[in-house]
């Protein structure tokens, strides 16, 4: 499909394309800074105030040599759920109840969370750290299983044969018939 016209960031002639290629290949890199430092958590009823744009988080063009190491900026990951007050875990770590806010170093990799509430299916969901992120998790009641994609229809048991059912009790012995058999 053709991309929307508004997305066109740069219309390049071949010459410009080559020039950019040279400039690009001559530059260094935004090296990943995969920090795994402590996380900061806070309850965040105002998570909607998040959503910093990529533009504000974008780094300046890199220099030829690696820039001196400095702590990466933090991003804020807001977790909300319906219903609220669901517990959130990150691996073995319990982060608290929704709504909550997590701070992580930018570009430190994804945060794989599990959101749980009694009577609902647990939801496994990923937050991204390349920008501020908001997760609005919808939990589904156990009784609403068939509304979920991937739920299997049960196989209907073949009539009269249920391999899991206990064997039926033997019928009482019929009294000896005195009538003639059907014709």
């Amino acid at each position: 499909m053709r991309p929307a016209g508004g997305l066109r960031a740069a219309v390049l002639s071949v010459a410009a394309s080559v020039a950019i290629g040279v400039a690009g290949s001559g530059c260094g890199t935004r090296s990943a800074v995969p920090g795994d430092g402590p996380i900061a958590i806070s309850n965040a009823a105002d998570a909607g105030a998040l959503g910093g744009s990529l533009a504000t988080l974008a780094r300046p063009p890199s220099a030829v040599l690696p820039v001196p190491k400095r702590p990466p900026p933090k991003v804020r990951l807001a977790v909300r759920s319906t219903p609220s007050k669901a517990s959130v875990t990150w691996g073995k770590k319990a982060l608290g109840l929704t709504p909550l806010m997590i701070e992580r170093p930018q570009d430190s990799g994804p945060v794989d969370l599990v959101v749980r509430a009694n009577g609902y299916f647990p939801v496994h969901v990923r937050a991204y750290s390349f920008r501020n992120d908001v997760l609005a998790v919808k939990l589904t009641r156990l009784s609403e299983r068939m509304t979920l994609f991937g739920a299997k229809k049960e196989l209907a048991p073949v009539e009269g044969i249920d391999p899991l059912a206990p064997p039926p009790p033997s019928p009482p012995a019929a009294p000896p018939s005195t009538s003639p058999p059907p014709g």
Partner: protein
Amino acid sequence: MAPSVHRLALFAVPLAAALAGCSSSYATAAPPSPAAPAAPPPVDVGPIAALTAHPDLPAERRTVQVVGGAERVVDAEEAVRGGFTLVDLRDQWTPYIFTEIADPAGAPMINRYRSIFLGLAADRSDADGQPLPAREHNYLELFGIPPTLSVLAARFRGEGAGGQGGGDPCAAVDLARIRAVTSIPLREAKSELKERARIDALARKLEGLREQAHAATIAELASTESAKLTDEVNAVTKALAARAAFAEVEKRLRCEGLFAPRARHATGRFDDAMREAVIRFQRKHKLYDAAALRPDTLAALGRSLLENDHAALVRVLTERVVAAANLLEDGSVGTAATYQGASGQTLPVRNLVDESLRAALAQLGLDTPEGALAFFRRRSPEDFSWLRVAVKLPPPPEYHSPSMDLSVEIDRGDVIYDPLFDEKGRPTNQTRRRFPMITLRTKYREQIIPLLRWRTTIGGWRSDLASNGYEYYRYKGSDVGPRVWRNVVAGPVWIAPNSTPVRSLVKYKVVQGASQQVVNYDEVGPGYLSAYGLVAAYNVVPGKDGKPDWDNGVRVHGSSEILSIRNPNAYSHGCHRLMNHLAVRLFSFVLQHRPVVITGDRTLNFTRQFLWKEDVYEMRLPSRGFWYEFDPPIPVNVLEGNILGKAKKPITIYVPKPEVEYPPGPIPIPQGSPEARAGGGGDE
């Protein structure tokens, strides 16, 4: 940053002196493997001028030329003016599709997979961009991500293997014993014990006979006795050679540090621990081989560490040279392909990759393992933050230009529409002899010149999830006829259609020290393991009169499903798959030889929940990858190929699997969306 005097002084040291003066992490200058091919003749690039040495240049202008065996720092601009090509050996290198590009205002266009690619290449982070555990290695060459020069330098220094740089960790391995066999049969534990007992008994019997006959060896015994005895002697000799080789293979895998730290390997057995170690060895050495001890794997196991490290350097430099010289022709079109040049002369389509690589290796003194070892001994870790080398490469062919008239032809080869099973559940004949091939061509002086011809894939019978939650077979074909490439996506994202079996969308991952199930983002991307690999082009029928393009979900893309490309019985879901590293080469070349609009990262914000067992998984895809648009698009023609079997047209309904019990009622109707038809992936 100014270079230190110490580092600059190193460049004046002749290579031979450097080699002689340093201690080795390899036991000796290992004798070359008998299997090593003879060095091809040097490539003639004409006279190479020695550039003026400028030892005090700032890093961004610095490049290294090797003159008379000694390195000197020269001016990069002067080198380019002098017809040299600068090969980038920095750790920040990526292929063109992942380079940093600025928009017209000078702001960087975020290419999100770039940092992941760099982290993976440097053994710094995993596929999610999270830190790699200490001493862990990615080994991703098979999947299109070559290691950085720093990673190779560590290998040459012996780090990472069992020796930790204190001498050749594999000196105790008897390589001759490994080289003495071409393959080692692998059996289940019980069968192996039985076979060992049989061979041992046979050996005892033969030994008794040898003593009786006063023969010096059992081989001598065989030469004087019956044919049956000869067979028995051969069987024992072969089995004992394989047993001896197996023991050396175990030592080799251990000394290279390829057993997992907590692996429990039972000596003499090809158990899970050893299988994993073999797989890691194959990945480290870019071996397209099954997890077994077959000829290619054994040949590599029988080479010295230094030889294999040199082979890795050559592979890495291949990609660096290809990128620097901006070329693609690799000899895959065969030696018969020719064109008529402007002079009227008939000229061959050259193997530019091989020519350029050989020229670069020879000029840099890297064409031997010992030369490569000396090169890395001269390096300090900081060098790979700035190191570029100036080499004189063979001139490009006259049909190369910034705007080439490129087109693509995909031949589907033999095509079989017949279902995999007949009405009685018996497998049908699905044998193909002609396999699908992709050819990139250019038009030059009214001639169509093939630049490359590579094996690719077409669609076939695949498992599909129907609306009733059960899997059926569905024929997922590859469209025939004229198409175009309008878009190429670096770090593409595949949106799994609803018909994708859910079981493939979940995987285990260690999260904060706990193993938990997560959405299998490896499959959707961006990433080298994803359905679209590292890069994809969309095959579409261009829209006319204001109508949008017609997209049937078929792509030409990189893939980590190596066997699907190489195995005669394997198919895709309709897409034309390429090895990741070849896809990266192809699209990097095409993007630099056609007018292109760079649209950059395309926001998606897609979410979907699904149930697997008793948990819900929410798939979240923030982006579709980094987009380029060809303007005008590149023509693609997909040929029908040879239709074999009874069915002459694709079967469009679901076919039940013989082994599955289905619920009562009619078979569901397959979904008709493009992504469901060809697995292409939910378009907007």
